[in-house]
Each structure stands twice: as structure tokens, then as C-alpha cells.
């Protein structure tokens, strides 16, 4: 159910949710940034009610540092896909040998999308030789969409947003090793009831909308 107006929560959410969440709840107020940046802000005492991270490690850290009230719940998954510019100038055929000698961009291993890509490549026996290891998935998508890069590895939801500029290709095994999204109520939340309601809605009634935006179901 919709939380009451007066109890509208402040939601700190990972940037990849910035398109879908405002459509789901127009009373809550959102602050979007990378998961780590948000964690830093919570550590510094930011007054938030809900924290939604785009990976498990960050949420775990938040829980360990006592920044959460109760247990976080997994609300979605997101699989990695291969994107190429709409005209596919390097004639990439998929997550295979055709990536050799192309200008491939991926995320740096320090960020979740980067570590995931590496795991998938190892499993598929594909050698990744990127020209750039970006700091944010946005930058990977930006470089592919502008044609600067021939291929890139991003989340399915990102690919969906830029569908007229890029073509997405599935990566074998990606659906089985997705990135997980977690939501939790922040300790000493100013709007605890709104927060609880928001997390519950994410895990329940809003699942269909998340799915429509390209997210996968929680596991």
C-alpha cells in the first residue's frame, strides 16, 4: 500500500534505480548515487529512512556498522548484458571471440558490474581485453551509446533505457549470476513507518513494475 503523505520516507537508492523508483512512489523523496557513496553518506549521519543498494557487500557493510534497523531484504536482481552500438560497427556477434580486437569497455573490478563481468568471462572462456575499466556503469553505457566503444558490459536495465542507441546481447550464464539489490530500513529513521511500508512494497506489490523495467526477480 501507499505510505501516508506525512510519513513519506527519504530513500537513498543506487543510481540504476533512478528511473523506475520515482514512478512507483511520488510521495517518497529520493537521493541517488553509487551504493558506496550512499554508504559514506549514511556513515556521516545522513538522515535517511530507506537504503537500497545495488550489491550485497555494501548492504552487508551497512548492517555490520549498525546503520540498519532490522534485516535487509533482497528486492531485485539485475543481469549483465553485452551492448554494442546500434549499427554494431565491429560486427560483434556475441559474448565470444568476436570481442577480440574490438574496443571493449567494462566496469573496473572494484565495482560490482566489473567483478561480475570478469566472473562471467572466466566461466565462458572469453578473454576480456578492455580499453577502459570505467568507474560507473553509466560511463560504460555512455561510451557505447556514443559509438566511442565497440562493445560494453552493462546491466540489462541500463541497456533497456538506451535501447534506441545500443543493441543488447545476452551473456551466457549471466542470468544465473546476477547482481542483487537489497533494501533496508535505516537505523533511527525519522519516518520508520513509511520506511517499513516502502521496503514492503518493493518486495511485494512493485515487483511487476521492477520486472517491466528489466530487473529480475529476487532469488
Amino acid at each position, binding site marked *: 500500500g501507499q505510505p501516508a503523505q506525512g510519513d513519506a520516507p527519504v530513500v537513498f537508492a543506487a543510481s540504476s534505480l533512478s528511473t523506475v523508483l520515482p514512478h512507483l512512489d511520488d510521495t517518497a523523496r529520493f537521493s541517488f548515487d553509487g551504493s558506496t557513496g550512499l554508504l559514506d*553518506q549514511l556513515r556521516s549521519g*545522513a538522515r535517511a529512512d530507506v537504503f537500497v543498494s545495488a550489491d550485497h557487500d555494501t548492504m552487508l557493510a551497512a548492517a555490520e556498522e549498525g546503520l540498519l534497523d532490522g534485516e535487509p531484504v533482497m528486492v531485485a536482481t539485475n543481469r549483465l548484458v553485452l551492448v554494442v552500438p546500434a549499427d554494431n560497427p565491429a560486427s560483434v556477434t556475441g559474448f565470444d571471440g568476436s570481442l577480440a580486437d574490438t574496443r571493449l569497455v567494462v566496469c573496473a573490478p572494484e565495482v560490482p558490474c566489473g567483478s561480475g563481468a570478469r566472473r562471467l568471462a572466466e566461466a565462458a572462456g572469453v578473454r576480456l581485453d578492455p580499453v577502459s575499466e570505467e568507474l560507473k556503469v553509466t560511463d560504460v553505457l555512455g561510451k557505447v*551509446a556514443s559509438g566511442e566503444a565497440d562493445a560494453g558490459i552493462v546491466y540489462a536495465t541500463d541497456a533497456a533505457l538506451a535501447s534506441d542507441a545500443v543493441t543488447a546481447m545476452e551473456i551466457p550464464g549471466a542470468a544465473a549470476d546476477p547482481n542483487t539489490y537489497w533494501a533496508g530500513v535505516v537505523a533511527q529513521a525519522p519516518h520508520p513507518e513509511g520506511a517499513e511500508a516502502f521496503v514492503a512494497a518493493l518486495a511485494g506489490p512493485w515487483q511487476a513494475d521492477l520486472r517491466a523495467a528489466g530487473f529480475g526477480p529476487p532469488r
Partner: protein
Amino acid sequence: MTGAGLPRWAWLPFALAMALLVIPLAGLLARAPWARLGELLASDRSRDALLLSLATCAASTVICLILGVPTALVLARARGQWVAAARTLLTVPMVLPPVVAGLALLTTLGRRGLLGQPLAVLGVEIGFTTAAVVVAQTFVALPFLVVSLEGALRTAGTDMERAAARLGASPSYVLARVTVPLVAPAILSGTALSFARALGEFGATLTFAGSLQGVTRTLPLEIYLLRESDTDLALALAIVLLGVSALVVAAAARLGRTHG
């Protein structure tokens, strides 16, 4: 009589510099969705971001003026070894990567920060409020005003101030009625620079103030967010940002010329 005249070859590097700096701006303009501009900018999010940016920039610019003019005066007129040190310290925030600047602010003014903790005890919390945006903008913009104004103050020299003192004017009266009017063009252009820099502030705001629509999500943050989902709107907002900056800088230059 313009001195020795310009060496003719100087126009080549000038043209290259203009090309380097102007062509990318032109590229941005070329890609902008001009036809849909009005419609795009009419959205709630755009309006909120634009109004928030203008309001916070106005506030931080006023603070920059109040703090910056006396600071430039002290740096230009006081003597001693420490002045050089103070000047260097003031310049550093100007060149810090904004994210590092934001981290520094967070460490200091955050609820658990050096100053933030005692302030929080007093019930004052600025993190993640509009006030935090103003602080971040002031932090990055203030040095621009101070540095450009200090140079002008040194150039203007102290002759007129001495003449005023000899007519019986107190230091404050001299400041208000002689010094400030004399360097008015520099104050104007310095103000324009710091306003424009505040308007473009991104990294420090994101890190220190967060990105909450209508509260802390300024124009650059909105552009950053929209880049992924709505490139057209992002570009449209970038054009607005660019236009406001150029307008402010050009207006200050023109005002300064008429005045000076």
C-alpha cells in the same frame, strides 16, 4: 598606439585555443534537442532543479561576497610570511577534485565530523539539506572570488585609500566608499565567476549534500542522473546551464566595462 603591436603568429595559437574551447561547446549545442527544448524544460524535475540551482547559487554567491571581499582585502593588504601561506591554502580548494572536496566536507561538517558532531549536539545539522548544497558551492566558489579580487586590489594600490584617510575617513568608510567602488569591475567579474562555478558544482554537492529532488538535487546532478534515462532532457538542461553561465559572465563583463 597599442604598444609594439601583436606578433602576427600569435593569432595561430589564439585560433587553436578558441577552437579547442569553443568547438566542444558548439558540438554540445549541435546535439541539443532544440525542437523539444520548451516541452522538456517544462517538467517538474527540470523546474525543481533549475529553481534549486538558482536559489542555492544566489545564496552561496552572497556568502562568497560577504566573506570574500574582506578576505581578499586582508590578503592584499596585510603583510607577513603567513599571508603567503593563507593564499596557498585558499587556492587549494579551487583545484581539488570535487569528489575529494565533498569527502573533506563530509568528514568535517557531517553529523560525525570534526565540527558536525558538536553542531549536531546543538541541534544544527546541515548534511543533506539545502544548506549543505550552499556550503559545498561556497567551498568551491569562494576561492575564485578571492583570488581574482586580490589581484585587482594589489593592482589598484593604496594611493586612493591613503588620500581618503588623510581626509579623515575611517578604514571602514574608506573600504565602502573608495576601495569597493574602485575595484567594482573586479568584484563583479569575480562574483560572476564564483556564481558560475557554484552553478556548475557537481561532485562536492553529490558527495556532501546528496541528490534529493527539490532539496539538494541541483541542475548538474539532475543532468548526471538523466544522462542514462533521458539523454535529450539531460542535454537540454546542460544547454540551460551553459546559457545561464555565459549570460552571467558576459553581463558582469559588460557591467564592469560601463562602470570601470
